[in-house]
């Protein structure tokens, strides 16, 4: 595993919080990056299978 899934989640969380949306263009960019069909959150769901059973519970809560 290149990077721990929990770290990736924290990273994306920070990115969302710090993302500056000031115009219609940046809003659209935000939408594509985090909510679009190829958003960066989606691949994390695929990684869920690799997470150890006892950590899976915590993962869902994040």
């Amino acid at each position, binding site marked *: 595993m290149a990077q721990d899934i929990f770290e990736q989640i924290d990273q*994306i969380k920070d990115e969302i919080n710090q*993302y500056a949306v000031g115009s219609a263009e940046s809003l659209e960019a935000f939408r594509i990056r985090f909510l679009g069909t190829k958003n960066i959150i989606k691949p994390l769901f695929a990684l869920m299978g690799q997470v150890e059973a006892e950590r899976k519970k915590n993962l869902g809560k994040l």
Partner: protein
Amino acid sequence: MNALKVLAEEKFDLSKSNVADGEKSAGAGDIDLTAPAEPFQLGSRHPVSIVIQKISQIFERIGYTVVEDKEIENEWYNFTALNTPEDHPARDMTDTYYLARDLTHMLRSQTSTVQIHTMEQKQPPIRIISPGRVYRNETISARSHCQFHQIEGLYIDEGVSFADLKQTLLYFAKEMFGEDARIRLRPSFFPFTEPSAEMDVYWGLKTESDHRITKGTGWLEVMGCGMVDPAVLDNCGIDSNKYSGFAFGMGIERQAMHLYKINDIRYYFENDLRFLKQFSSSF
């Protein structure tokens, strides 16, 4: 991870409205300040208010004062002081709305109650008119309603005679219906006046609707009137040997119906804007 998605969605929605607001205020600089403003919606006066004002002004010009009073009364003011016998049918619950928690009080069934209050409070000369809402337990139809408006007049002084009453009513008819107005007085009966009369105004019989309004006689019944019964004066502490006076009263809705050709009394209370808007140019 779902929380992450929700966080992104919330931020997106918030930013979207912020961006929309920003665009709106950015566009504000483009407003043409010389353009005419949006038209302001003006209300209109209710036909009943218009007629009350018209009648009040007619009497104010000859020295009458407008007096208003409460709508919940006790039996003394609504009936007893007005010389209404204990067994009079108007006192029945089928005719008058009594308060459920206190059967000695009721919604007034006539504005004559104001006369009693005024005569109790001051000595003659008294010259008042009192417009107001009254309530009667009647079936609601095109011609009658359980609530309506009356305007009542009272004049008490030394040496007031029936001739004064007649002249006052003639003056009112001319002001209300035109300089050519003719009136007639028919004998009638009210508990609080003696003698009593009904005043009719000549309306004419030119059209079919004139026939319907005047029941084929050409005369339109406008109000009840009479010389105040000495017993009523005594009830209010006014010396009936020294003072005399007259009283008159009429229904407002009926006057407005004739004035504006309204054929259903229920329109007054339905708050239908299509009806009310028609009076925006009056007065």
